[in-house]
């Protein structure tokens, strides 16, 4: 199942709708890379609220997405990680180092506003 990507001002919002397979995640990575370029987005929100498990592969892919988008000039924030999911992730030793996180979409937007304002290189 493909992840829809919405454009909201200077940001892209990828809102995961259901359980993701590995290939869905890889597809998401490719799509985001492409759109950030074509829309010249400054920030990306990936909403993972519906995910009931984020395993090592998913973590690795999310981190890779964030790092890749950074190189393309956009900040990434992962929002909506559930309490039990966060607990399982740290038990697995997965921490999403170097990737922004926020409670939900609203917080994610605030996070990006803050981040992109502070990075003059990415300014309008």
């Amino acid at each position: 199942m493909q992840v829809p990507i919405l454009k909201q001002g200077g940001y892209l919002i990828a809102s995961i709708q259901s359980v993701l397979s590995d290939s869905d995640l890889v597809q998401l990575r490719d799509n985001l890379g492409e759109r950030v370029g074509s829309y010249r987005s400054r920030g990306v929100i990936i909403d993972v609220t519906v995910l009931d498990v984020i395993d090592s592969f998913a973590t690795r892919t999310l981190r890779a997405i964030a790092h890749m988008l950074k190189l393309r000039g956009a900040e990434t924030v992962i929002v909506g990680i559930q309490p039990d999911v966060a607990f399982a992730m740290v038990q697995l030793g997965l921490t999403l180092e170097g990737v922004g996180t926020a409670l939900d979409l609203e917080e994610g937007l605030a996070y990006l506003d803050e981040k992109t304002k502070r990075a003059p290189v990415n300014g309008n």
Partner: protein
Amino acid sequence: MATENQTEIRSAVDIVTARQRGRALALELGFNGADVTLIAAAISEVARNIVDHAKSGEIVMGSVATTQNGGRTGIQIIARDQGPGIRDVAQAMQYGYSTRKGLGVGLPGAKWLMDEFDIASEAGRGTTITMKKWKR
């Protein structure tokens, strides 16, 4: 108590199936939300190990009981493959903090998530992982 199911693991899509079944079974066995997630994550990791290293295998899960510690019940998950096997199990179970693709986080991570974790592997014959989690 005869709740048991078996999932063939042939591709990455089956990982999702296996962990959804594991989640459903854990709920049915009465695990709480946090533990259900830990169990699903552990299944995800051992299933991924099959896909990454053995191409195909199976995951069998069911309920388990012990008389120790005043009697406990739990879930048992067996991940079995006839792949190349793991040459150095001790090394594979070491946690690699910055991992490349494949082994590094998965198996040692799964061990942390579960209460019991046993791995038997023979080069050329395959790997069997047996893991259990007890209800608290």
